[in-house]
């Protein structure tokens, strides 16, 4: 039994040596009370989860704890007296003399990662710490190794490396995709507009040069051709803007949303001076985000509100912070045409519209743009509305949001 052998060694040495020849007590053990103290120490060693093995300098196993039994599968009687080489797989056999040599010199081998072999022939990965064992005179008489099974840890490390490599590759692929998207957007911006200009320009030329030979209906048809071409140009621009939003690098910093809203609403008011809109802005609404993108979102939200209050007798738009479900959210509220909540799912889709072109003009990208900006900031946007009773657009921007 492991505990017996340790105890017997300690006990024999305590009897053999006269007290005056000893250097220091070992492991704080009061050797006058040696048997009980050693018994305690031995129990501690035995109970350890790590494999603790003591060897003579020639490699013979002299002590074997419970942890070692669990790790290697051998019981103490099966291994005590055997050479430690029974635990070494063929490829690693040279380690034993090397380690023992260092031990002989009084050196410690620390956290040495290697492979050992169990009773049933399995190979396990372990981390070994081997220390010299000295007698009471300081002479190295053997080695004590503490081994920890790191097979699981090694497996986890390998998996982590694989995942990291996969991640690295995915990032590289994304970078390529982004560059391709950039090039594509550029091509679209340039090449699609050119035929549009031809369609528009030559339709106009027809009217200018042959107008007298064309009847009113013909001229109207040409007008519709031209309008179609111009509108397509606008659609292309919007698609490009949306795509740019997805690609642009975020440069977040504290942003005063109230100030931003003030400028945007003042510009909007200047564009339609004969239709005053009552604008209420809560003061000091700050957020943390990319100022350019947030400006685009704020502009779109207020343009939307402006547009849908166009037929209101007393249009009113508010910008506040409110608590929704326990969290803080910004809201742009108007008392305009509103919308049917049944279609709220389409509200933020690009090019989806909830009103006819002749009711309210627009391409249907404004809210998709807002959503994209908010999503880039890892926030959320949603809306509530009622036909004829206005709409409220809420958005949250996490990340250093002053609550």
């Amino acid at each position, binding site marked *: 039994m492991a505990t017996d052998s340790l105890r017997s060694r300690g006990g024999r040495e305590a009897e053999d040596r006269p007290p005056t020849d000893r250097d220091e007590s070992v492991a704080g053990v009061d050797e006058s009370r040696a048997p009980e103290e050693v018994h305690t120490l031995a129990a501690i060693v035995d109970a350890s989860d790590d494999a603790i093995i003591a060897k003579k300098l020639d490699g013979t196993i002299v002590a074997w704890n419970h942890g070692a039994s669990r790790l290697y599968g051998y019981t103490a009687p099966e291994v005590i007296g055997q050479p430690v080489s029974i635990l070494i797989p063929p490829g690693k056999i040279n380690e034993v003399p090397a380690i023992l040599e260092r031990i002989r010199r009084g050196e410690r081998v620390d956290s040495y990662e290697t492979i050992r072999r169990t009773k049933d022939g399995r190979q396990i990965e372990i981390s070994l710490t081997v220390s010299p064992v000295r007698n009471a005179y300081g002479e190295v008489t053997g080695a004590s190794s503490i081994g920890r099974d790191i097979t699981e840890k090694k497996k986890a490390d390998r998996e982590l490396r694989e995942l990291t490599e996969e991640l690295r590759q995915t990032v590289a692929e994304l970078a390529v995709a982004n560059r391709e998207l950039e090039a594509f957007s550029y091509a679209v911006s*340039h090449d699609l507009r*050119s035929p549009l200009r031809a369609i*528009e*320009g030559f339709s106009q030329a027809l009217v200018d040069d042959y107008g007298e030979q064309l009847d009113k209906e013909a001229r109207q048809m040409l007008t519709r051709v*031209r309008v179609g071409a*111009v509108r*397509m*140009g606008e659609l292309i621009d919007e698609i490009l803007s949306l795509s740019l939003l997805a690609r642009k690098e975020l440069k977040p910093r504290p942003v005063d949303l109230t100030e931003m809203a003030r400028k945007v609403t003042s510009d909007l008011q200047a564009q339609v001076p004969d239709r005053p809109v009552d604008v209420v802005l809560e003061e000091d609404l700050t957020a943390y985000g990319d100022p350019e993108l947030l400006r685009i979102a704020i502009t779109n939200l207020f343009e939307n509100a402006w547009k849908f209050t166009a037929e209101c007798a007393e249009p009113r738009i508010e910008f506040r912070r409110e608590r929704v479900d326990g969290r803080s959210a910004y809201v742009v509220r108007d008392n305009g045409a509103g919308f049917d909540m049944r279609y709220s799912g389409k509200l933020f889709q690009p090019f989806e519209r909830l009103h006819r072109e002749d009711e309210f003009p627009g391409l249907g990208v404004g809210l998709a743009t807002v959503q994209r900006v908010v999503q880039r900031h890892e926030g959320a946007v949603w809306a509530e509305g009622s036909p004829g009773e206005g709409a409220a657009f809420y958005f949250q921007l996490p990340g250093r949001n002053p609550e």
Partner: protein
Amino acid sequence: MKSHTILLVEDKADDEALTLRALERQRIGNDVRVARDGEEALEMLLGDDSEPLPELVLLDLKLPKVDGLEVLRRIRADKRTVLLPVVILTASREESDLVAGYANGANSYVRKPVDFDQFAEAVRQLGLYWLVINEAPPT
């Protein structure tokens, strides 16, 4: 002898026709020469010393053979043409083109609108500014 020509550098036939049409409205249609790629443009400007230089270059960016920015660079690199007014007239609104255009010495950058009336108005203003109001550099 001072010329009053414009050199239009434009590869697409439709765009050429529309630009000329817009210029004709301003009665400067007769004084326009057209180069249909970068190489031709450089040949016209730097090739023959006996040919007078135009007063203004309207330069598209996407050109075959030698592209617009390279043409611009070579114009600025040659002491005969370093002061020549160059207006970039292009479909692109990409910031990178804008920056590159100005960085390489363009005097102005105009984006071609789809709407022809708007385009014609832009051309009218360009003609008025560059050929009438602006003092051209001495040749």
